[in-house]
């Protein structure tokens, strides 16, 4: 039943605002792909175009090789979960789950058998006769998910389904969604602005900004090797350090004499002022006599974060603050300690322009 979903050159504007520009992307069978980006980046528009709630200005959307643009929303065979309040308030959990089957005239016996399965799938069997306002937000979203699956859609669209939930419930429902998606093997597009959520749940992530795709890739690839400055900044934390590029392999911290290696990061950078975008875990505290080029600094703050701890180190002489992350086991420093830090620039990104 499921099939590959493909957007090809889809453009959509709302007045002067370009929500999607030549948007092309395909989602494989059984894959969970996340559209990640800040609000207004066009990720929800892409979803709504696929669902049939928006008509694109140009381009095409297909499922299993067949264009679906000519079909109205109720004929597309798409299951959708919304941010919140999408359950029908006057129907019980069971009646909500049955809704799609009722409008398809599926027999009562089949309906109730399917409802039983679904309730088991989302582990809510005890709540079948409750009304939406009688169950929690997390439970409501699980019912919404089950309801979308009830009609065995070819594609599942999830529009920020977790963003109105509390932090702890959010993780619980997130894992639930992942488990159910794996079990059902249905092609799924998940929209979120939360990078942590995207990293945790996705097979692949598509990072978007103002209507365009910045990068598509597996979560670890997007995180480790951001293709653009936007991705580096939006996914995960990043240090932004002013440097002067001396050659294709060497650079110097702005206002500092120490040279550092930029061999792989510096491929496209010209000489002169630039910025080094480097993740906190790619900055290490090293022994002063380390073979690696390092600079001296002072620990200004320590942020304990459970398994990992970060430290903000002020580089001596320049006053720059650099964030360093390491496992808590290794991070045995205190505020005021004098330390040496080294930059592992292999996965860092070089951006044009200085201060």
């Amino acid at each position, binding site marked *: 039943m499921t099939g590959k979903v493909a957007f090809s050159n889809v453009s959509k504007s709302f007045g002067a605002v370009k929500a999607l520009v030549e948007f092309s992307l395909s989602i494989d069978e059984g894959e969970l792909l996340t559209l990640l980006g800040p609000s207004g980046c066009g990720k929800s528009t892409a979803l709504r175009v696929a669902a*049939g709630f928006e008509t694109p200005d140009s381009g095409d959307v297909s499922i299993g090789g067949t264009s679906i643009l000519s079909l109205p*929303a109720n004929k597309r065979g798409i*299951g959708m979960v919304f941010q919140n309040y*999408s359950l029908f308030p006057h129907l019980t959990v069971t009646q909500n789950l049955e*809704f799609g089957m009722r*409008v398809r005239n599926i027999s009562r016996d089949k309906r109730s058998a399917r409802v039983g399965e679904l309730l088991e799938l989302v582990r809510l069997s005890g709540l079948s006769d409750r009304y939406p306002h009688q169950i929690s937000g997390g439970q409501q979203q699980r019912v919404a998910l089950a309801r979308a699956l009830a*009609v065995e859609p070819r594609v599942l669209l999830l529009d920020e389904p977790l963003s109105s939930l509390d932090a702890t419930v959010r993780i619980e429902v997130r894992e639930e969604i992942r488990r159910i998606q794996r079990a059902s093997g249905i092609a799924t597009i998940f929209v979120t602005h939360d990078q942590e959520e995207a990293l945790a749940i996705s097979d692949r992530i598509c990072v978007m900004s103002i209507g365009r795709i910045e990068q598509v890739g597996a979560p670890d690839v997007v995180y480790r090797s951001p293709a653009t400055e936007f991705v580096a900044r939006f996914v995960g934390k990043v240090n932004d350090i002013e440097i002067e590029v001396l050659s294709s392999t060497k650079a110097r911290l702005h206002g500092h004499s120490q040279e550092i290696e930029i061999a792989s990061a510096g491929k496209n950078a010209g000489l002169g002022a630039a910025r080094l975008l480097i993740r906190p875990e790619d900055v290490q505290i090293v022994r002063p006599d380390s073979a690696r080029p390092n600079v001296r600094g002072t620990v200004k703050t320590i942020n304990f974060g459970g398994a990992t701890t970060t430290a903000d180190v002020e580089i001596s002489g320049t006053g720059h603050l650099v964030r360093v992350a390491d496992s808590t086991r290794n991070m045995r420093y205190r505020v005021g300690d004098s330390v040496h830090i080294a930059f592992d620039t292999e996965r860092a990104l070089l951006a044009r322009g200085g201060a």
Partner: protein
Amino acid sequence: MNSRVAGSLNKRARHLAFAPYAIFLLVFLVWPGLYVFRSAFDQGSAPKNPMIEAVTGQYRSSFIFSLRLSFVSAILGLVIGATVAVALMRLSHVRGLRNVVVGYSAVAANMGGIPLAFAFLAAFGMQGLATRLLKGINIDLIGWGFRISDFWGIVLVYLYFQIPLMTLVIVPALDGLRRTWSEAAQSLGASTRQYWRFVALPILTPALLGGFLLLVANAFAAYATAFALSAGSSKLVTVQIRFFLQGETITGKTNLGYALAAWMVIITAFLVLGFQVLSRRAERWRR
């Protein structure tokens, strides 16, 4: 003084703050209300209990007339008011239209009384402007037996405040329909018609039904307009009650007026209670 004493004093002071309002209501609302019921059940030297007499014979037909009028004007108000609200929804792209209509609805819903009766007399009375205008195009209202003081005449006038009252009830209810409900229904395979039939209409029902009861109660309690239209001779229960208070009454039946009033209170109480229950349900769904 220990804290518990202070607390209870505080509490007493707190209750004291509500005393003027409570006493006012007791004296000017509850007491008259109880007086109506006490007198209504007081048979005195009359041959029949007034509460029974009030729902037999000519008084029974008065109640039926009043209730029929209330229901008919409420149903028409509901249908037309809902149509106006839906029309507004369709025309939501016209800027300012909604504000104008809703604003005027608030004004018209509060209209009534003598001036409104005058306006309709001027338009639809025997020599009314609209009456003669319609006759000019062969719509002879008077010839067909239409009188502004009769049943359908009063309905026509009551609609002037019933329609906007309903519009005021429905517009927020329509606003309460979330876009996600219609989109969820569509993504589950429902057509627009199925969405209205299985989702929107059931969700709106409490508000519609509650609004309907409000309209019935509204028309049922009305007095001035019908009084002015009929020069004081209407069959309406409210107008009938007047005779008893003004002493234009058959001796031995002094408490009959109270009984009519008591029945009115009972009927409106049920209507208002129904309205409250339904709007509470509508409220709960909206969360």
